[in-house]
Every structure is written in C-alpha cells, then in structure tokens.
C-alpha cells in the first residue's frame, strides 16, 4: 500500500519534511498503527511521535481518530493540536 503522508508545525519540523510517499506494511491498518510504524523509521520520526496521544490526524482532509482505518485513503495528515483563531 502506497500513501501520501503530510506533516505540519513541529511534527513537520522534527521529521524535516512536509510530505512524503510511503509504502506501508500490511500490519498498518489504523491511524494509530501508522503513527507507531512511523516512529520506528529513525531518530527524527521517533522525536516527532514520542508522545503519540498528542498527535492529531486527518484522512483525506477530514479529522480522524487514532482508531480509524486508513482504508483506501489518498492522503493522511499528522499534526499537533491546532492553534488557529
């Protein structure tokens, strides 16, 4: 499975890039699985996802919980809690 993953704010800064195309192992089913998988990809990823529960996600531009299935999503976004307004 290939997926576009995009990062914002300090998640983006720690990983060092704004987006990437990733091949995911079969074992990655939910958003939470994706975050746990990313955290194994290197020091910068480990730093970005060291406290997984603060990470917010969107599947194809809609807010999504960690237990939601990625399914056939085209784009997953991972970011800190929002501070707009």
């Amino acid at each position: 499975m290939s997926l576009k993953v995009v990062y914002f704010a300090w998640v983006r800064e720690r990983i060092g890039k704004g987006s990437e195309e990733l091949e995911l192992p079969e074992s990655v089913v939910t958003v939470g699985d994706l975050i746990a998988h990313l955290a194994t990809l290197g020091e910068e990823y480990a730093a970005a996802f060291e406290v997984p529960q603060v990470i917010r996600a969107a599947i194809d531009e809609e807010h999504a919980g960690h237990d939601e299935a990625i399914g056939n999503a085209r784009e997953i976004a991972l970011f800190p809690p929002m501070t707009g307004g």
Partner: protein
Amino acid sequence: MTADSTPPAKRPVQVTVRIQSSDFDISDEIGALTAGRADVGAVASFTGLCRDEGGRLSALELEHYPGMAERAIRAIAEEAAERFELTGLTAIHRYGKIAPGGNIVLVVACASHRQAAFDGAAFLMDYFKTDAPFWKKEHLKDGGAGEWVSAKDADDKAKARWRSRS
C-alpha cells in the same frame, strides 16, 4: 396590505470563507453582508489580533493545511448559519507572518436578532480554535528561536459547551 399577506421570499444565507495572506477590512466585510437588505438587525463580529505578549514577540507565523482549512471552516460555517438562523456569515483566516497589532482572523455573523448573531460568531470562533488546521509559531523580538503555541484546555472547554446545549 400586500406586505402582510405576501411576505418577501426568504433571502438565501450568504456564507463566505477565505483563507488569505492579505489583510481584511471589517467595514467592507460587514457591508457585503448587509448592503441592499432590510432583514438584518444584528451584526456580531470578532477580530483576533497578534499580541506581542508583553514585548516578547516580533511576530506570529501561521502555518495551515491549505486543502483542508477552507473545507473544514466552510463546513463549520454552514452548520453555524443553519443552527443560529443567520442571514449571513463571513469567516476569514490569514496565514503567514503577522506582526503584533496585525489582524489574524475575522468572523462576522448577521441575523435578525442579537443573540443569534453573538452565538453564531462565538460558536465559529470556538471551533476555529480547536478544529481549524492552523498552527501558530512565535518569533521572538530578541531574535531567539520561538516556540509553537500550545493548544489550550480552555479552548476545548469553550467548544464543548456548544455540544452540551444541542
């Protein structure tokens, strides 16, 4: 007499959402929602500005998720317009570097009566704070690297009050 027996058709609700780096003018935005109408009795607005936090900051930098931001804000704005029976609603959120005193966000809610207008503007601002995909980074006046602004518990509570009422 005709005025009583055939009330004028209900005007469509005007919902405008813009994500932009440029500034906005509140008189222009209110004018766009009220011009040529005689059914708007109440206009509530909220403008959020960049503070310097007691002289500490030189700017705030706003990052956003372009595709999602406009879609998410429009969905919330349309929900607010229906829920509070607004006659019009405009939401503008800026991105990029904004100096202290500069505008960040504007919400204008129009309605026949004042409580609906106030509620519409406050509701949209509460959702902006928690659900709109924007992030603020501080730039320090002393040139040091700034921090990303942390989300506030108070904002989540402010948003939750709308849920308990519905």
